[in-house]
């Protein structure tokens, strides 16, 4: 109950924040622009639109997750609003989870709006060629679903940094680094295998196993080429993401419980 009260308030704070609308505006702009780009190319235009559209949803979703996620706790401490909440009968871990869920709801609403934008553009594209609107590739929603699971992981990472750091800039840099490296883990492994220097090999192997492999959530290529994405794969990756989230939240909770709010 208290978790939901906190979550609702976090959502309310986010939708009264201008930064959210700016990010959403640019994301929709990118998706719309993909239609123009598509007309300049030969071949299957819907492929390009889906390619650009899904990439935009991923990147802008990640920006929302990172920037609002970092601020989630740091802002509460900076503005000292946290004092009056933790002086109420709210266990600290419940506060943390409430904040997390509040931001997830915000992100969900946003990527659904972006997804709807992409869907409309795809429909327009089909209509322009005189096709049926049922020709639109419905699998984009599978891709968007997995983007959401990925954003759950990124939000959890941002939240974790903000539970022990008091610098938003540093936390943002770390989270963005985790996002980029998380998408490059395969490359990281290749590099790790080639590197002879054991001094470098250690950290590279560590990052490979410690950071989530975010490319697991990326099925854009298969969707673009209308290849089948088995449900078993989606289920497996979902479990992987949720497991990662659980571990990070647990860790954040432990750090947060011991912290002084001064």
């Amino acid at each position, binding site marked *: *109950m208290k978790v939901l*009260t*906190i979550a609702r*308030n976090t959502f309310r704070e986010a939708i009264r924040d201008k930064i959210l609308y700016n990010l959403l505006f640019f994301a929709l702009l990118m998706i719309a622009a993909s239609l123009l780009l598509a007309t300049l190319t030969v071949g299957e235009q819907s492929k390009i639109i889906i390619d650009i559209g899904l990439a935009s949803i991923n990147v802008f979703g990640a920006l929302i997750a990172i920037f609002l996620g970092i601020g989630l706790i740091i802002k509460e401490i900076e503005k*000292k609003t946290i004092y*009056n909440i933790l*002086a*109420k*009968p709210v266990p600290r871990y419940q506060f943390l989870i409430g904040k997390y869920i509040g931001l997830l709801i915000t992100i969900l609403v946003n990527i659904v709006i972006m997804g709807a934008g992409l869907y409309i553009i795809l429909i327009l594209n089909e209509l322009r060629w005189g096709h049926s609107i049922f020709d639109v590739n419905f699998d984009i929603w599978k891709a968007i679903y997995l983007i959401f699971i990925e954003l759950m992981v990124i939000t959890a990472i941002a939240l974790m940094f903000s539970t022990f750091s008091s610098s938003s800039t540093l936390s943002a840099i770390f989270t963005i680094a985790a996002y980029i490296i998380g998408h490059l883990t395969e490359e990281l492994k290749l590099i790790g295998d080639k590197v002879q220097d054991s001094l470098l090999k250690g950290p590279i192997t560590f990052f490979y196993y410690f950071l989530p492999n975010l490319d697991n959530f990326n099925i854009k290529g298969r969707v673009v080429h209308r290849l089948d994405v088995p449900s078993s794969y989606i289920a497996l990756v979902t479990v992987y993401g949720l497991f990662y989230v659980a571990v990070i939240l647990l860790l954040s909770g432990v750090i947060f419980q011991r912290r*002084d709010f001064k």
Partner: protein
Amino acid sequence: MTNSVIKTENLTKVFKVGFRGKSVAALKGLNLEVTEGEIFGFLGPNGAGKTTTIKILMGLIYPTTGKAWILNKEAADVEVKNRIGFLPEQPYFYDYLTSREFLRFYGQLFGLEGDELRTRMNNLLTLVGLEDAADLQLRKFSKGMLQRIGIAQALINQPDLIVLDEPMSGLDPIGRKEIRDIILRLKEDGKTVFFSTHIIPDVEMICDRVGMLMKGELVNVGRLNEIMDAKVKYVEIVARNVSKEMLAHMEAIGSSLYETCDHVSINVRDEDRVDSILQLIKDGKGSVVSVIPQRETLEEHFIKKIGGTS
């Protein structure tokens, strides 16, 4: 032990500041006890450690050593907070909420809902005089309004203990009086009020007991009349139409004189001399305007203490 509402034992808090981790001792072995039903004034100059103490009591920071109990439970206990009302130092609240949303939010954190919550919200808005601002966002509030809505949220759970960190700061005299009246009303209802301040007259007017904190140490605690010299320091007589020679005479018996345009004020240290001076004034066809015994004020006491410790 049963009626002890706040109790601390050898409370120490050391902050590490800067990159070098220099230690600052904000509290040095604080022992404090507040009993049920009293208004306790926690007095101290800036940086004395009042907020630090309150933060430990509210479980926001952990003491370096020592222990703190509230209503016979450890201060960090989450459940005991159901019975506490708290107003933080500056009204640090979500400014994007309206008064109503704000009170509802905190009420919900206490598990309140429905009609019960609505009734309490309306009563509190009336109590603090913010009915007209019920749907105004907090970012548009004046400092005094913020302080009032802060008091309102502190009372939403009908607490047994109310902890207020500088509730009168930033308020005008009328606002301060209103807060004092609310505090007195809470006492009448049998509640315990603990508040910090450095505004001495507020303490003098309503507190049952005061604790004086200085540089992290409790330098004095007790009833006001116990703490201060209750003895009359001198008697001030204000008179009119007193001749020059009469004044010289009075000065000779050991009183100090201050002349203002048409009044003269005579400070008599020795109470036994008061009668003879009054007789002198009458004999000289002068008239007495007032006779006031002067005691040490809390303010003088306070300043004396600060001077003594620094």
